[in-house]
């Protein structure tokens, strides 16, 4: 896998971190919406966008991966998707 920070590295150096999903507003969401965010998975057979971490450097990034062909299509820093800063009260 190619880490956007460290370049190509052995897959055993990386940790899978789950699908990229949008967090609902914790103050306004219902239990069902929050459970959907926390527990439910799209789990597609095909291309999925997910979080990965390069463990030795603790660098989190996003990968597009084909879950049928076992191929990593693209990796990029999370900043490409998350452009706005989120401040928690």
């Amino acid at each position, binding site marked *: 896998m190619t880490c956007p920070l460290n370049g190509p590295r052995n*897959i*055993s150096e*990386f*940790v*899978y971190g789950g699908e990229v999903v949008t967090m609902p507003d914790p103050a306004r969401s219902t*239990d*069902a919406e929050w*459970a*959907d965010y*926390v*527990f*439910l*998975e*799209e*789990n*597609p*057979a095909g291309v*999925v966008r997910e979080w990965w971490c390069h463990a030795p450097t603790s660098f989190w990034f996003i990968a597009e*991966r084909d*879950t*049928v*062909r*076992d191929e990593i299509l693209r990796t990029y820093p999370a900043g490409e998707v998350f452009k706005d800063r989120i401040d928690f009260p």
Partner: protein
Amino acid sequence: MPFGLIKYGFNKEYPARVDLPPACDLKDSYDVVIVGGGGHGCAAAYYLATEHGITDVAVLDKGYLGGGNTARNTAIIRANYLTPDGVNFYAESVGLYKELSNALDYNIMYSERGHLTLAHTDSAVRTMRWRAEVNKHLGVESELIFADEIARLCPTLDLSDDVRFPVLAALYHPPGSIARHDAVAWGYAAGAARHGVEFHQKTEVTGIVKEAGRVVAVETERGTVKCGQVIQAVAGSSSLVARMAGFKLPIRTIPLQACVSQPLKPFLDPIIVSGSLHAYVSQSARGELVMGGSTDPYPLYGTRSSLDFKEGLMAHMLELFPFLGEVKVLRQWAGMADMTPDFSPVMGETPVENYWLDAGWGTWGFKATPVCGKRMAETVATGRVPDILQPFRLSRFEEFDQVGEKGAASVGH
């Protein structure tokens, strides 16, 4: 005696045993359609027919009977779980398994071996004590044992201190068993077929038809079939089929790999599991060591094997049994496991009426085959989810009321 043998073979008094009738056309409609012809689907069909008199049933499978995870598990049966809900549920399964060869008139080669879960750390010993107490309270044989007793049960295990993780204690579960996994699916299928249940292999379900929130038909490659009720039992593809029905599941599809060694003389009676070392092993009737470890590090819809997995597993196997160093691996394979966040299954009601779910069977599905079949059949026949399945309902997630069994999963983490 070749002539005598030929005469016997053609004698009409001894007809060849036919387990499944030849394939037939799909009917327009069935009372119950079971999607998935693995152990769970076949068992549900069997109990629907035998215990509830519901025989207008079709079992559909996109491949062949028992060709998915039923053929790919490591055939271990036990009930030494952690939560009372889990222990009760799996204990009923072990009870059914014990009688299954007789009940089905089909030899599933049930072999009671005893099951040892090794503890290498103080925290693991604590969890073993906890499990032993919960088990005993619910009438399941289980106890914590130490080096002398472990050595008596498994003399070949390395119990010395000069390894990276010495064995401190073990949870001993005498009813732990192994069985012939294929025979479980075949036996249930043959039993159900004798009562008129139809099995349609190579029949992929391509869509679920709903009307007013209720399932009314199943679309297949071979045409649309109307149905009163549906059981979904498609481990590995649960999320994909559920999406056809219009809902999401708390499941990640992650491969679980396993392998067997070349056959050896019998030396290993009990099943040995080490959660800390991510390894488990039993010796089959053929003498092969059946070995497995933890699930793969990321989700995948594939059954490839990897060298990473084998290297990790073998390093730990050699720590337990150093003399296996020269033994060859004979076969390797993988199955696609439905991993849930709490390491418990998801069963029962779904957002779609008359559409019943049997999923989330991660790395613990084979041992639950009889109880799942029996209780899913009861669910369909009575329209009510029995109490023993209630803890595993899909809605437990939005109620934040999970059944945490990670501590009792062999090595699935």
